[in-house]
């Protein structure tokens, strides 16, 4: 149960996505200034988004749940087929519902 994501790793990924989006927004602002997302755009330069420690822990937990759920569902399918190795066909079976559930 101790096996989970490192919140610092999650923070790094979040930061990456946020800085990528900030760059994109800047690029868009250059071409069209009258964007609907001005509200989001104005705040970005002065204050980049951050996440507090508990939010990161909770995100790690969410990701852990995502992965364990995926594995458990594939395991159920494999078990029903009477095999003891999870293969891609099992994943294919559970994927649509998994993606709807998360």
């Amino acid at each position, binding site marked *: 149960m101790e*096996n*989970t*994501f*490192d919140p610092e*790793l*999650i923070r*790094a*990924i*979040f930061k*990456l*996505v*946020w800085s*990528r*989006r900030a760059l994109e927004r800047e690029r868009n602002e250059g071409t069209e200034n009258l964007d609907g997302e001005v*509200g*989001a755009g104005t*705040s970005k330069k002065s*204050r*980049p*988004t*951050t*996440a*507090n420690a*508990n*939010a990161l*822990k*909770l*995100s790690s*937990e*969410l*990701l*852990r*749940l*995502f*992965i*364990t759920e*995926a*594995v*458990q569902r*594939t*395991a159920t399918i*494999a*078990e029903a087929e009477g095999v*003891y*190795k*999870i*293969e*891609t066909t*099992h*994943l294919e079976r559970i994927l649509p519902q998994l*993606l709807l*559930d*998360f």
Partner: protein
Amino acid sequence: MEGSRESDLEKEEDDDATELLRDRFRHSAISLAESEAKRNGMEISQPVMVCIADLAFKFTEQLAKDLELFSQHAGRKSANMEDVILFAHRNEHLAASLRSFCNELKGKEPQTERKRKKDSRKDDKATSNVLDLS
């Protein structure tokens, strides 16, 4: 797998740090999947683990986007637990288990620091608001 091709192209624009992060993420995702399969008394093939790891990475990127939008919408510059729960609000069971995890985290906190206690109380109220909505 076409999706990962595309993101491979994207990735080239980013620096090596992206690559490193992605690999670290994959690594922990794969070891998580492996141990979970073992717990279920199952073996798990490599492509399945890689696929799940990639999915989880995309899921993380989506989460990051949503957290940014949610926190900005609330007029905050920092994303908190409430935003994470909001991300999962469509799935009641998921939201419920996140909420209980969230309460666990809060339960630990007040004993260690006093300043945080006030923060977590704010969080408390906010979270219960989310609860009412869903």
